[in-house]
Each structure stands twice: as structure tokens, then as C-alpha cells.
């Protein structure tokens, strides 16, 4: 008995020490697969005129259910879950400035049988141009089947349909997939809602900020802290397959880049060097990691295989060379250097060759991020205010998307249509995440539980 107590005591004392040394919380739960299923019945069609897709009035009534069954996804059952699913689709679509949807509140709820046979008269009478209907069914194994249908009300035509089978915990992903289906069909753009964001959650006063690594869905749901806040964490990046996170931590007292494995909750140093490492980035195929390392005060960019091994130095310059973002095909890297005397943006081949400056004009330019579409580079422009801007990969056609005291660190939506960044408030130092579309007209704050910085938007979930 005494021995057991002693062992228990030792275990209790040992646990916090382990946690403090790593500053890691419990790893987030694994994400289940989303299985796409064939939707039966009905005709598919196309609209003859696709130029009318902006500011569409889209009705999104509650999803129907075949029977109100209990589900782990919603304590009130599948009928309530159907309303929640439509709510997520509505929130997704209303938040990007392209559509004017009407949500499930205040709309009649279609019966299960109406999902594939809309009551055209009801929706046409309400002035809806488009109609999104769906259903949710709880299976015997607990999994949920969610169907999603997009209709053109005036043509009385079905435009798109899809269905998915998900674990109850992943019910929001089915709603994001539905919103992606509607968005893609109506805009012609690639989907982006079913994706995640890693960022730094900030709390506390300006001179003692606690900065924790956190992750969330693209709409801010399913928020989780990865680190506990005992040491400062900065600049995360999701791996393309969402299995790992790169980030900077001061956990050993020095700034170093760690590779955090989401499945195991363990982490390793990106480089065994004793030198400080900054600014981690993934290659598009996830096989390589870029990091920046200061040796005797001089920072250069290095590449290392994601599985470990020999690092290759890509820049060799007395200036600060830092960051780096691959072109989508992996052939080039856009990065930041002050070799000219101030921060400017450069492009090099993936092996470090052919380094050339692409940003000119007044002010400094930093934190370049290559669009997943390849056609634009987003960056922070510093000349008075810190503003988010985009330009072509050759440095042409610079366009400012924001104008605030301090906006920095752009990250692209998976489809390259939205830029997310963080904004710092003058004086207080408070931070928050914002999104802006490529017109610069539709800007909004992404709600987070605490202040937030360093957003990193991952690709569409597999």
C-alpha cells in the first residue's frame, strides 16, 4: 500500500514536469474520413446564364430528417441537427460577400420527401433565386448520412447534389462540404470551407503576452489549444495532409522550430543545430520543410526533408534572408531579404538558384505567400501603415487590399480567393484575425476565443 502511494505520488509529481518541459496539451482527436456517397434520383441540369451568380438570394431551410433519431452530434436529435447543418451552410455562404443567403430561421422546413422534389411555389413566392435543401439520417452504426441539393428556383432545375457519410463528431464537415458544393457551382471557383486554420492565441497584457498554438475549423468552430502557454509559441504552419504542424517555440528558452505530430502529440526539432531557427514552411507536396536559421547573427534559408536528414542552405548572403513560400508546382520559392538595405521580396528556384528581387517602389515588403492558384503573391507592405497587398509573381500590378495601422502575415484560402491576416491595434497591442477578398471590399473579422495572430490556412481537408 505504502509503495503504491509512493509510486502514485511520484507519478503525480512527474506529470506536471513533463507537461512543463514540452508545454503541450492533450493532442486533438483524430479527424474521421468523409465518405462521399452517390445521391439518387432527380435530374441534373445547368443554368444557361452564369453571369448572374453575384448577390444571389439563396434560401437555406433546415435540413430534413427521415425520423427524429438520437445522435451524438446533437443532444436534441437529428431534427435539431438538420437545423444546425443548414445554419453552418448559411454562415459559410453569407460571410464571403458573394451571396445573400437566408438562413433556416424564418424559413419553412421542407419535409423529408420534398428534398428531392422542392415545393417550387413556396420558394418562388418568397423571391428566392436559389434553394439549398438537405437531409440528415442517423445510421445504425451511429454514422450520419448528409445529402445536399442545390436548385435554381426560377428554372425549377437541380444544379448540383452530393452526399456524405461522417462520424457524428464530423457533422460540421458535411455542412462545409455542402457550402463548398453551392459556392463552387455558383461561382466557378474551387471549394475552401472544409479546411482548417492554425494560429497563435494571445492573452495577457502587452508586456507579458501568453502565446499559444491553437487550431480551428475555417469558420472558427472546433477550436483547440495545442500548447499550454508556459512558453511562447509563434508562426505555425499546417502540413498539406494536416498530420503535422510546424511552429516556433521557446520551450527550451531559445526560439526553435518544432515538428508537432498531431496523431501522436509528440514533437521533434526541425534541426539539431544549436542555432536559433525561425519561419517554418512546407513544400506543397509536404516532402520538404523550409526554415530560416541564424548563424552568428546572420539568417539564411535552409531546406530539409520532412522525414529528417541533411539540411541544404538555399541562401548565402550577409543580409537577413527569411521565410519562403513555394509556388504551387514546387519549382520556385518567394522569400524576403534585406540584402538591398531594407526588407524586399525575392524569388529563387527551388534549389536556391537564380535569386532575383521582384518588389520595388516606396516602402518595405515582407512575408510573401504564393497563392495556391499560382497567379498572385500576397505580402505585407510597410510604408506608414502596414497593409496587406497582392502582386503578380513578377512583381507587377501591386494592389492593396487593406489599410489599417498594422496588418501583417497574409495566408491564402485553399482556393486562392481570400486572404487572411492579423491586425494589431495601435497602443494596446491587441490582435485579431481578419479576412479580405481579392477586391478588398469584403473584409471581416474572424471570431476567436482570445486575441489571435499568425494565421496559417491549410488546404481543403482530404
Amino acid at each position: 500500500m505504502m509503495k503504491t502511494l509512493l509510486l502514485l505520488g511520484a507519478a503525480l509529481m512527474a506529470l506536471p514536469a513533463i507537461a512543463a518541459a514540452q508545454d503541450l496539451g492533450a493532442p486533438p482527436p483524430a479527424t474521421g474520413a468523409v465518405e462521399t456517397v452517390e445521391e439518387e434520383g432527380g435530374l441534373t441540369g445547368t443554368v444557361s446564364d452564369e453571369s448572374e451568380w453575384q448577390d444571389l438570394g439563396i434560401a437555406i431551410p433546415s435540413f430534413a430528417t427521415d425520423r427524429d433519431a438520437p445522435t451524438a452530434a446533437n443532444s436534441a436529435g437529428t431534427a435539431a441537427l438538420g437545423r444546425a447543418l443548414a445554419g453552418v451552410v448559411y454562415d459559410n455562404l453569407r460571410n464571403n460577400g458573394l451571396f445573400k443567403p437566408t438562413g433556416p430561421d424564418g424559413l419553412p422546413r421542407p419535409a423529408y420527401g420534398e428534398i428531392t422534389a422542392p415545393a417550387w411555389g413556396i420558394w418562388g413566392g418568397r423571391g428566392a433565386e436559389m434553394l439549398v435543401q438537405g437531409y440528415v439520417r442517423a445510421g445504425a452504426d451511429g454514422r450520419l448520412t448528409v445529402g445536399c441539393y442545390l436548385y435554381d428556383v426560377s428554372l425549377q432545375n437541380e444544379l448540383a447534389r452530393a452526399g456524405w457519410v461522417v462520424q457524428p463528431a464530423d457533422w460540421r464537415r458535411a455542412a462545409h462540404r455542402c457550402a463548398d458544393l453551392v459556392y463552387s457551382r455558383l461561382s466557378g471557383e474551387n471549394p475552401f470551407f472544409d479546411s482548417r486554420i492554425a494560429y497563435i492565441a494571445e492573452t495577457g497584457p502587452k508586456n507579458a503576452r501568453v502565446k499559444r498554438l491553437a487550431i480551428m475549423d475555417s469558420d472558427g468552430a472546433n477550436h483547440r489549444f495545442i500548447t499550454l502557454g508556459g512558453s511562447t509559441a509563434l508562426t505555425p504552419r499546417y502540413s498539406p495532409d494536416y498530420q503535422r504542424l510546424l511552429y516556433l517555440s521557446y520551450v527550451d528558452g531559445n526560439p526553435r522550430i518544432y515538428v508537432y505530430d498531431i496523431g501522436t502529440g509528440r514533437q521533434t526539432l526541425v534541426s539539431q543545430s544549436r542555432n536559433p531557427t525561425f519561419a517554418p514552411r512546407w513544400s506543397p507536396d509536404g516532402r520538404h520543410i523550409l526554415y530560416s536559421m541564424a548563424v552568428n547573427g546572420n539568417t539564411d534559408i535552409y531546406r530539409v526533408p520532412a522525414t529528417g536528414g541533411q539540411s541544404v542552405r538555399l541562401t548565402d548572403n550577409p543580409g537577413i534572408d527569411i521565410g519562403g513560400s513555394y509556388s504551387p508546382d514546387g519549382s520556385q520559392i518567394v522569400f524576403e531579404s534585406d540584402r538591398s538595405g531594407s526588407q524586399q521580396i525575392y524569388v529563387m528556384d527551388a534549389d536556391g538558384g537564380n535569386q532575383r528581387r521582384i518588389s520595388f517602389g516606396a516602402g518595405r515588403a515582407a512575408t510573401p505567400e504564393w497563392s495556391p492558384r499560382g497567379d498572385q503573391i500576397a505580402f505585407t507592405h510597410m510604408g506608414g501603415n502596414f497593409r496587406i497587398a497582392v502582386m503578380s509573381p513578377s512583381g507587377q500590378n501591386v494592389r492593396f487590399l487593406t489599410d489599417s495601422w498594422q496588418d501583417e502575415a497574409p495566408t491564402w484560402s485553399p482556393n486562392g480567393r481570400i486572404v487572411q491576416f492579423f491586425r494589431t491595434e495601435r497602443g494596446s497591442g491587441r490582435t485579431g484575425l481578419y479576412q479580405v477578398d481579392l477586391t478588398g471590399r469584403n473584409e471581416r473579422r474572424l471570431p476567436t476565443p482570445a486575441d489571435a495572430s499568425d494565421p496559417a490556412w491549410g488546404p481543403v481537408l482530404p
Partner: protein
Amino acid sequence: MNVVPGRRRVNDFDKESEMTPPTPRQIALGALVAASLGLGACAKRAPESLPPEPGASTVTDGAGATDPYATGAGGAAVPGTQAHFETAVNGQNTIYFDTDRYNIDSVDAAALQVQAQYLAQYPNLTITVEGHADERGTREYNLALGERRANAAKNYLQSVGVAANRVQTVSYGKERPVALGSDEGAWARNRRAVSVVVN
């Protein structure tokens, strides 16, 4: 104690925009001058009312065994502690930089020479130079800039005889400001390299 009057820098950004690093001859001369003035010669004063370092510094992170800022019983600083070091160098354990710069100017050099003399007096001590940047820079660049500033201080200390293995560096970028305003005065106080005694 000899104190040189009148060489007080009110605001860091009033400095000349660019100063070349000192030549070895200048360093030697500077060391000579500093030596003749003796410990505590005040070539430059820190900006007024420097707040305490935020949070735990590198040296204390996780360790918690010894507080480098501790004073001895009765308030007198114990030799080899951070408090004693700061008092002995007359607050010149912090040097300041111009916007985006990391060069050691004559004022910084004098301060580092005083630090070097203290380290010569206590040969068992090692220090960490913490490099910082102001908030008006991007986060990653500021981490690299802080490292550059800390190394500039370290290199200067080496040039005046401090062994390289007695000086560590760490950059905090813009993550640990001491001045909390968003104005030129606050930014000038945050662009700094702080020498901290390691136990």
C-alpha cells in the same frame, strides 16, 4: 566614482542614421578611455523609468532555482547577481539601436566596455545578450533582427576581450517590449540588447 556628465541620450532615434562599426583601433582607444575612467563610467544612460523585464528571462525559464535579479539580505546586491551587475555598470547593461539597424555606435561601445570590465572582474560569470526589436516590424523578420542585434553586442564584447563561450545570445524579436506605448519614444526603448547574468 567618476561620472562623465552630459552624454545622455534623450531619445534613441535622434542618433545619426548610420554609424560604421568601430575599427579595431577605435575599440582599443575606447577600451583605454573606459579603463581610465574606471568601472561605472557613464557614457550613456538608459531611457528613464525602465520597467522590469517582463516575465521570466531565458536564464530563469523553467529553472526557477536562482533569481538573477535577487538582492542579498538587507537590499545590497550580491556580486554576480543581475542586480549587482546592473548597479555596477550603472544601468548600461542595455544598449539601444536605430530603426532597422544593429550597428554598435560609440555610446553602445562605451556601455559594452563597461560590461566587459565587470565580466573581467568576475571571470566565472557568463551572460546572455537578449536582442529585441520594436513592434513596427513583421514578426519573423524581427526575430532575425533581434538575433542580429544580440550578436552585434556579443561580437563587440569579444573584440574587447570577453571569451566567446561566456556570452550567449537569444532573440525575442518584438515579443517582449518594455515600453508599452505605440510611439517613437517607446519604440526607441524597445530596440535594445540587454545583457543578463547567467548563474
